[in-house]
């Protein structure tokens, strides 16, 4: 997708998915994040949490997937995320975004995006921004 195909306000996604506890555990192993809070409800409760939680890094990976799927051929140059609430496996999630700015320079064509990961009640658990280079 090229910059002339995109206007400010262009929507990304949504990705709708529910992470399982096993998916979160497998991600934590692959990402070398061995904390008990990411492994099981039982281990997370020992750390004073209500149950197993999703690592912030996995939320960022879902933002990256959203951009890859919504802007084919784009390259992620910068991603910022703020972890506002605990993301838990077993909850339906919506991940979506919007293009807020487009700019071109000698380095290429870029768009800026606002990103959100929220539950079905609209609680924004992770928010973010991204700079994406277009082909």
């Amino acid at each position, binding site marked *: 997708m090229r910059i002339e195909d995109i206007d400010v306000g262009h929507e990304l996604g949504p990705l709708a998915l529910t992470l399982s506890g096993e*998916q979160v555990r*497998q*991600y934590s*192993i*692959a*990402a*070398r*994040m061995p904390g008990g809070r990411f492994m099981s409800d039982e281990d997370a409760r020992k750390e004073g949490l209500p149950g197993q939680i999703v*690592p*912030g*890094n*996995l939320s*960022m*990976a*879902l933002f*990256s*997937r959203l951009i*890859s*799927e919504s802007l084919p051929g784009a*390259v*992620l*140059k*910068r*991603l*910022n*995320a*703020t*972890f506002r609430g605990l993301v838990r496996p077993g909850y339906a999630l919506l991940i979506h975004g919007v293009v807020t700015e487009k700019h071109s320079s000698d380095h290429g064509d870029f768009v800026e995006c606002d990103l959100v990961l929220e539950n079905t009640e609209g609680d924004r658990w992770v928010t973010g921004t991204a700079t994406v280079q277009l082909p």
Partner: protein
Amino acid sequence: MALELDRSIIGSEFDRTIFDPVTDAEVAEYAAASTEPQPDQTIASPTFVVRLRGRRFMPSNLPPDLGRAAFDAGKDIEWGAPIRVGDVLTAVSTVHDIYEKTGRSGSMRFLVLRTVITNQRSEQVAVIDQRMMFR
């Protein structure tokens, strides 16, 4: 009332780790677990960089008035050269910032840890700023 945080450790390096060469197995494992698309099997998906955790996660000389119960408040990743199978990566972590914010739930202190990752050709692969929150 805001505490006067000791900012003297800003800029200090607390970890430098050289990783074993990146393998196709770990690149594939991470892509599968993160669900990020991986169009080229010899290039790591973007958030693979979060997997590159050094030997020491936190500086040992944190100011005692920083508080306790650190958790991950957010992250900013800026990408440079792609990570390819066979790359030998070095991660250098420093204390980038310490600051205090007062919100509805009281005073919070933030520690920003910066990790700069380079490859064997001295190309910058990523800069990761991790914001840890203390109360």
